[in-house]
């Protein structure tokens, strides 16, 4: 394994993140990670968990594919066919939970508080499954770069762990950086106008709306087959 393959793997990840096709899920992830304006540590923790979710997913897939346990073509076609269809309704439901439209009474019996309150308190923890979910939802660009470029590179470099992991980190870094930028600019705005609580409320609400918007978009495109010019 050379430095060229190491930098190529990371670059392929960044290229995946900045390409237009995963834009909707990236915007949702940015708003989810960056919504905790009150604490830098919470944003950092959330960002790290999101990165871990993505990285571990690509690492597991990379290991299974490189070792020959799974067939690249069949796995890719399965994920592209079904995951993106599941993602739409799921994002809408998650957005509704974030907005408190549903879930307020679902877990009262179990823990004494609703899903939405839990999500607000322990929101950072949900960044991990979100990273896993978004990593598995391959769009044409991420499928092309991961299955068509990264996996052959991993096989030829005899690196079924490091290169997929670097690719995963590469896909998450732009998202986490943007989450920080947006969180701090929102916080600065809140302080400048002496209304941090209001800004926090709007950012939390915007996160729920973005999830619902992204969910409707995914449903229209992947379930109903409607195409948009900006894809």
């Amino acid at each position, binding site marked *: 394994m050379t430095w060229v393959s190491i930098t190529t793997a990371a670059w392929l990840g960044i290229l995946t993140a900045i390409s237009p096709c995963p834009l909707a899920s990236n915007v949702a992830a940015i708003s989810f990670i960056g919504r905790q304006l009150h604490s830098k540590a919470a944003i950092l923790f959330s960002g790290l968990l999101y990165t871990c979710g993505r990285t571990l997913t690509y690492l597991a897939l990379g290991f299974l594919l490189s070792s020959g346990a799974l067939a690249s073509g069949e796995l890719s076609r399965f994920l592209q066919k079904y995951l993106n269809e599941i993602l739409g309704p799921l994002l*809408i439901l998650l957005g509704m939970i974030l907005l408190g439209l549903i879930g307020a009474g679902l877990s009262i019996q179990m823990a004494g508080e609703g899903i939405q309150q839990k999500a607000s308190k322990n929101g950072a923890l949900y960044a991990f499954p979100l990273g896993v979910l978004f990593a598995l939802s391959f769009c044409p660009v991420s499928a092309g770069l991961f299955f*068509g470029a990264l996996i052959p590179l991993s096989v030829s470099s005899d690196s079924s762990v490091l290169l997929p992991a670097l690719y995963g980190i590469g896909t998450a870094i732009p998202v986490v950086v943007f989450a920080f930028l947006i969180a701090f600019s929102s916080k600065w705005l809140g302080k400048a106008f002496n209304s941090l609580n209001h800004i926090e409320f709007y950012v939390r609400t915007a996160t729920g709306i973005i999830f619902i918007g992204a969910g409707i978009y995914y449903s229209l495109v992947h379930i109903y087959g409607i195409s948009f010019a900006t894809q």
Partner: protein
Amino acid sequence: MQFSEKHKKLITNLLLAFVLVSIGFALGKHSVVAKTVNSNMTAASNGGRTTADRLVKIFYMHATFRCITCNSIESKAKQLVEHDFANAWSSKKILWEEVNFQENEVLAKKFDVAASCVVVAVVQGNDILEFNRLDDVWPLLEKPAEFDAYIRDAVKKALNKASGE
């Protein structure tokens, strides 16, 4: 802006209805017996040539969801073939076909397609004699000269094989 409880309930019900209808639509779509897609090339799609002719057929394999980058790969590859192999293109020794690999599972399996890509094949009648799947179109998209050379070489080799050289 604060919503009243009535508005919240309305929005919640509309969104839940959309979710349920979408899930139902998706399940319905998959439960319909997959239509038999004629994976083999028809005489018409071979430009009406006789089955004895060996031709080069370039398949652009794409998913149902078409992205900007995928469309760009398709148009760049097609323009290159039309321009650099103008004679073979106009005499229909090179054919181009778009295939949705999520619908045409037979071809998707035959070419072992993992993502949108270009496949250059030598065909005779309805038979695919050999093929070359060009996965590197993705990483080479940022390098136009290498992308062009990659496609050009694959088509040249296929043309040579088709003409028996």
